[in-house]
């Protein structure tokens, strides 16, 4: 036997895992990080000009998960047969060192404080009856005040550019008036507004709303972070989303954490290592380590570890828990069990505005996190009473750099032809003179929307695929429709010659064929009750106390904001409590 023993094994090499690895090696632990995909570094995969090749990048999906090895199955309702997600489309998970943190866009939010206690907040304002039947609305079990130091820490690692509103109780800038107090300003000033964002800012302001610059992990200036890692100024090349930044300007684990971590003798990164399961002892309450497959040699290896951290991304974390037998699988019929419960996503619809033909929107210019947003219809910032739904959406112009193949394949729709001369004319006109306004909203959790193991399809390692049962529900459709209706006056004020307002339709099922976001959440959520959450408020498994599960899987609801800022803060929060409490006396941090 003679299994290699380390203090901690971390699964995955994205943001969640890299943060945990940095924190645990700082605490003096020996750490092995296992990543199923290949090694990736900026000088190789990020090298210009190959890195900005649209076909090879976002179209053939060079940096994304290769589904031939493993995927999920999806169905809308419990009475359907779920079918495999055979081609990447609706969401684009990462693979390889850096995870999706290498090819993300960089919009870097904190959280709306009320979203952390959404159930309590809704009940306080509107009463328990306001919550629709079948909605599993829950609090996170942690407050904004508790998380604030960790949001701050993450921003200083990511080199986040932004415009603050309130710092230590004092209004200091032109930021988001709905945003909570901060202990410190953003490390870098906001990125410049693109033309499209600047006219949105003016129109939204004139309409009485409160526009602010999106917080962006795209560096507005040169920056050296907490770990001594350096970033160069973003030049708005527009190749964030789906690409790795050749300028070291977009934050990624590869640029912002791993250069420091790789120098630590206590740290070992093993790429091409697909973790098959967390090994448990006979009591099923203690993990003994993990077993992984070297995807090159096909050799299986078991590592022994005192602490196991899952950072394999939301649904992979849930999959690993289910195949390893950590916690009780969720049963939607009896509404019991926790692993797979509260699977959530995000509502997003993109409306298009055309400007006069003398005005060029230059949509190829942009940065992943650049843009202007309003929060007037997000979270609990508006009166839901007369509207009768829970949740909300920020609305924004986030011109991240539109590429020609994506524009051409997507153009059409809304009654316009999809090929031929009329299409060609519309495509050119749309590419040159239009812009997009998104409603990027919340998605609530429902009793019959969940994750479990598929009875039929398997991955190449012989394990059952994860099964998603997911569709849009009335509450979220009505929320989206309401918020989109508020876009129209803004678009008019921007000088629209034409607009195509897009919203979800009543009864519209989730469609796996069109990209929405990769902001999947829930399935192994945090909370203060082991009957309704898989993890305690420190992201520790209630059932197996030496397993921590870090990622958006912890979100009880899908929020209007992009998730990664919250994931990073939760990783630092969990790490802090592991370092200050758990390591001194390993065991449950909260009594069940």
């Amino acid at each position, binding site marked *: 036997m003679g299994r290699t023993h380390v203090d901690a094994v971390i699964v995955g090499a994205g943001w969640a895992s890299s943060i945990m690895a940095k924190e645990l090696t700082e605490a003096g632990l020996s750490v092995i990080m296992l990543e199923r995909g290949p090694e990736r570094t900026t000088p190789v995969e990020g090298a210009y000009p190959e890195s900005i090749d649209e076909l090879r990048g976002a179209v053939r999906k060079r940096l994304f998960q290769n589904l031939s090895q493993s995927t999920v199955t999806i169905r809308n309702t419990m009475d359907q047969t779920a079918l495999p997600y055979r081609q990447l489309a609706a969401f684009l998970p990462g693979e390889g060192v850096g995870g999706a943190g290498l090819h993300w866009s960089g919009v870097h939010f904190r959280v709306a404080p009320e979203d952390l206690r959404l159930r309590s907040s809704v009940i306080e304002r509107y009463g328990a009856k306001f919550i629709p039947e079948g909605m599993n609305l829950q609090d996170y079990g942690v407050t904004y005040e508790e998380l604030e130091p960790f949001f701050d820490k993450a921003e200083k690692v990511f080199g986040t550019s932004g415009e603050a509103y309130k710092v230590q109780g004092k209004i200091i800038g032109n930021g988001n008036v709905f945003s909570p107090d901060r202990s410190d300003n953003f490390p870098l000033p906001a990125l410049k507004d693109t033309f499209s964002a600047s006219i949105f800012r003016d129109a939204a302001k004139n309409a009485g709303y409160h526009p602010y610059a999106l917080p962006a992990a795209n560096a507005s200036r040169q920056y050296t972070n907490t770990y001594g890692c350096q970033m160069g*100024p973003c*030049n708005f090349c527009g190749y964030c989303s789906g690409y790795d930044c050749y300028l070291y300007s977009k934050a990624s684990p590869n640029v912002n954490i791993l250069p420091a971590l790789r120098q630590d003798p206590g740290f070992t990164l093993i790429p091409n290592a697909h973790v098959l399961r967390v090994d448990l002892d006979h009591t099923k309450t203690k993990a003994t380590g993990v077993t992984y497959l070297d995807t090159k040699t096909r050799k299986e290896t078991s590592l022994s570890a005192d602490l196991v951290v899952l950072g394999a991304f939301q649904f992979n974390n849930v999959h690993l828990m289910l195949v390893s037998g950590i916690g009780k699988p969720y049963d939607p019929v009896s509404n019991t069990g926790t692993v797979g419960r509260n699977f959530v996503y995000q509502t997003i619809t993109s409306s298009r505005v055309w400007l006069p033909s003398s*005005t*060029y929107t230059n949509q190829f210019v942009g940065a992943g996190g650049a843009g202007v947003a309003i929060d007037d219809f997000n979270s609990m910032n508006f009166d839901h009473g007369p509207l009768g739904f829970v949740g909300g959406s920020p609305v924004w112009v986030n011109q991240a750099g539109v590429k020609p193949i994506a524009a051409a394949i997507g153009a059409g729709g809304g009654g316009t032809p999809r090929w031929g001369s009329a299409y060609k004319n519309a495509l050119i006109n749309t590419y040159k003179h239009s812009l997009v306004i998104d409603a990027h909203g919340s998605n609530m959790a429902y009793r019959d929307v969940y994750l479990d193991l598929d009875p039929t399809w398997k991955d190449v390692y012989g394990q059952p695929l994860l099964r998603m049962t997911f569709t849009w529900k009335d509450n979220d459709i009505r929320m989206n429709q309401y918020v989109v209706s508020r876009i129209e006056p803004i678009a008019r004020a921007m000088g629209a010659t034409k607009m195509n307002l897009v919203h979800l339709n009543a009864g519209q099922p989730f469609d796996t064929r069109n990209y929405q976001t990769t902001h999947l959440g829930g399935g192994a959520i945090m909370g203060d009750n082991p009957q309704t959450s898989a993890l305690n408020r420190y992201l520790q498994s209630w059932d197996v106390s030496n397993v921590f599960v870090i990622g958006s899987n912890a979100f009880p609801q899908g929020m209007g904001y992009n998730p990664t800022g919250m994931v990073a803060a939760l990783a630092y929060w969990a790490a802090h409590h592991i370092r200050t409490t758990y390591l001194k006396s390993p065991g449950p941090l909260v009594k069940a």
Partner: protein
Amino acid sequence: MEPTLNRPLRRSFVKGLLGTTSFWMASGNASWTAALAAEAAHPYQPTFFDTMEYRFVEAASERLFPADDNGPGAKALGAAEFIDRQMQTPYARGENWYMSGPFQQGPANLGYQLPFAPRDLYRKGIAGVEHYTRQHYGKGFADLPAVQQDEILTALEGGSVQLGEVPGRVFFEQLRTNTLEGTFADPLYGGNRGLGGWIMLGFPGAKADFMDWVNQEGAPYPLAPVSIAGETA
């Protein structure tokens, strides 16, 4: 190919003509003329498609993205060469797709569920369309007038035609997607000849630095596109 940015062309950019009808008619448009001449001198020899299949891809892609006042169509831009060359890549063999069975059909919104990779879709799809056109029109697709070619493409898109094992709509979407890729991908892959696709859209290509063009109050971007290999219009 040599970078061929000459003076008269540069002046036409300044006038904001890039990609307009007058631009395509301007005699100074050297890169485009050069690309056409190079192809005419040494026409591309397909390696995946046979002659009939290649003629089909050329003809059908041209109807999807036709030459008109806005500029060249898919045929002149080399979309067929692009697609043929793509057929030799892992993508075309379905190596990035989950291709394990069982293959069971379901509602369209749950996505693609056929056991065919792009190479199979083209082989089966083209044979199916040729069979269909010979039956209904007495000739192969490439030999029909544009109006009838459009009729057939409309029928495929609308889902009323089954091409043997392949639904017509699936084949249509495959062809449309790859045609548009071939029109707008970097010329590295055989399409977008002379950067013609990018010129039409006003896309600067591999420039990848817009520090000073973040907000120019809606003015058009003034410089011609450049490819990864350094070719410029």
